[in-house]
């Protein structure tokens, strides 16, 4: 990391590349500092869109995964349209949504939701499918019904899948929010990116990207912490010797 930055800095300084093509790391850092108020101001709506979008996608994805897991009919009927939502090119869809729904929060939530929904559905379903069938049998001999077996066995078993999907979604959401905001908005880091690039303020644009990346890393890390809190049995195992 340090090496890459060093080579980058040296290359830009020595070969005297135009800052329009590639701004030097020190210029990006300077922009990060001087524009801190703007960046902070624009992070707010973007962060809100990302968090709301992931929550929305997560809730819909969990419900869909459970439905698809339990109903073969739902699986056959709904899987193709679900895959279709993933194949829609977001750069085409995002401006359309803005045309239909305006500059508000809703079109952004739809874009983030569409992008984040699918990974959570897929990983949750594979988590549910990987449940030990002998555990399900055992629950039956203990007198558990379908719902009991789901809440006591299948859902906890599938949690690693849920978190894997959520972590994927967190990173994808950051890409999605930029596409959504570039399609039409009057605030947010995606909007700031559009404006700075249009004004050829490349150092400022890079600084904006840096903030987005930092936010993605923070989200990913927080999900990792939540994962360890939610599933202590998986992480304890590494610390105690197998017997």
């Amino acid at each position, binding site marked *: 990391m340090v090496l890459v930055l060093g080579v980058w800095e040296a290359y830009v300084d020595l070969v005297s590349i135009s800052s329009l093509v590639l701004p030097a790391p020190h210029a990006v850092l300077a922009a990060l500092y001087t524009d801190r108020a703007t960046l902070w101001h624009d992070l707010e709506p973007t962060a809100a869109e990302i968090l709301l979008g992931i929550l929305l996608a997560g809730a819909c994805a969990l419900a869909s995964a459970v439905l698809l897991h339990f109903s073969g009919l739902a699986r056959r009927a709904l899987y193709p349209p679900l895959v279709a939502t993933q194949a829609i090119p977001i750069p085409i869809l995002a401006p359309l949504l803005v045309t239909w729904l305006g500059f508000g929060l809703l079109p952004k939530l739809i874009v983030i939701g569409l992008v984040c929904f699918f990974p959570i559905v897929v990983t949750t379903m594979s988590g549910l499918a990987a449940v*030990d069938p*002998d*555990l399900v*049998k*055992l*629950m*039956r*001999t*203990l*007198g*558990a019904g379908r719902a*009991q077996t789901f809440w*006591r*066995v299948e859902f*906890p078993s599938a949690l690693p899948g849920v978190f894997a999907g959520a972590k994927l979604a967190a990173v994808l959401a950051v890409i999605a929010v930029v596409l959504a905001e570039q399609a039409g908005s009057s605030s947010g880091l995606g909007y700031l990116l559009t404006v700075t690039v249009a004004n050829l303020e490349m150092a400022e644009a890079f600084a904006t990207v840096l903030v987005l990346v930092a936010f993605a890393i923070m989200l990913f890390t927080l999900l990792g912490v939540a994962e360890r809190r939610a*599933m202590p*049995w*998986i992480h*304890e*195992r590494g610390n*105690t010797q*197998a*017997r």
Partner: protein
Amino acid sequence: MISLEGVSHSFAVRRGGARLEVLSEVSLQVAGAETVAVVGPSGCGKTTLLELICGLQQPDTGTVRCAPAALMPQRDLLLPWLSALDNASLALRVRGVGRHGARAAARPWFERLGLDGFERARPHELSGGMRQRVAFLRTLLSGRPVLALDEPFASLDAITRAEMQRWLAHALEEERRTVVLVTHDVEEAVLLADRVLMLSPRPGRLIADVQVALPRPRVRTDAAVVALRASTLATLGVNA
């Protein structure tokens, strides 16, 4: 308590393919509070027999009548996210008993089973023998009159297994239940059971039904135990 009449069962090896007969014309009766061991070579349908008793499968032909049975599977199948206490009381929670009530019902058993101090431990923190004891307790606390034990100690090392056999003999003496113990360990059958049923290689048929009229506690080196073990092995076609 348990009654099987002319029970045969087969599996489809592949979907739509030939069927593999695993049990053939098995009839047996088990009285209340009796411990019956079922021994036989691998693949003779022992596990299938237990699943029929537990109602997890329906026989192709014949009838199975049985009081409600709880299964203790070959692997302990403890839930890794629950403490030992919550695993043991799982059946009570399933029946709708509250968390506190279920734990209170299971707690006294931890001391009786030599598990005191490990109530809050997660399964991965327990030794193999302890895990089997928790799994046994979970089966016991299901409140079902019949316990179906499927090779409960097969995965343990020889020393722990001997210890657990002694322990189970003691536990069953204190808490009389109807027990069907499936095992491939003839010595285990002779040590623990009132009756030993022998199955032939696949498809499993009942080839012998031997009363074990030996006093308890039984010791594996006792001459009568050794003799019965030898004759059982001979019946199964193994030269002891």
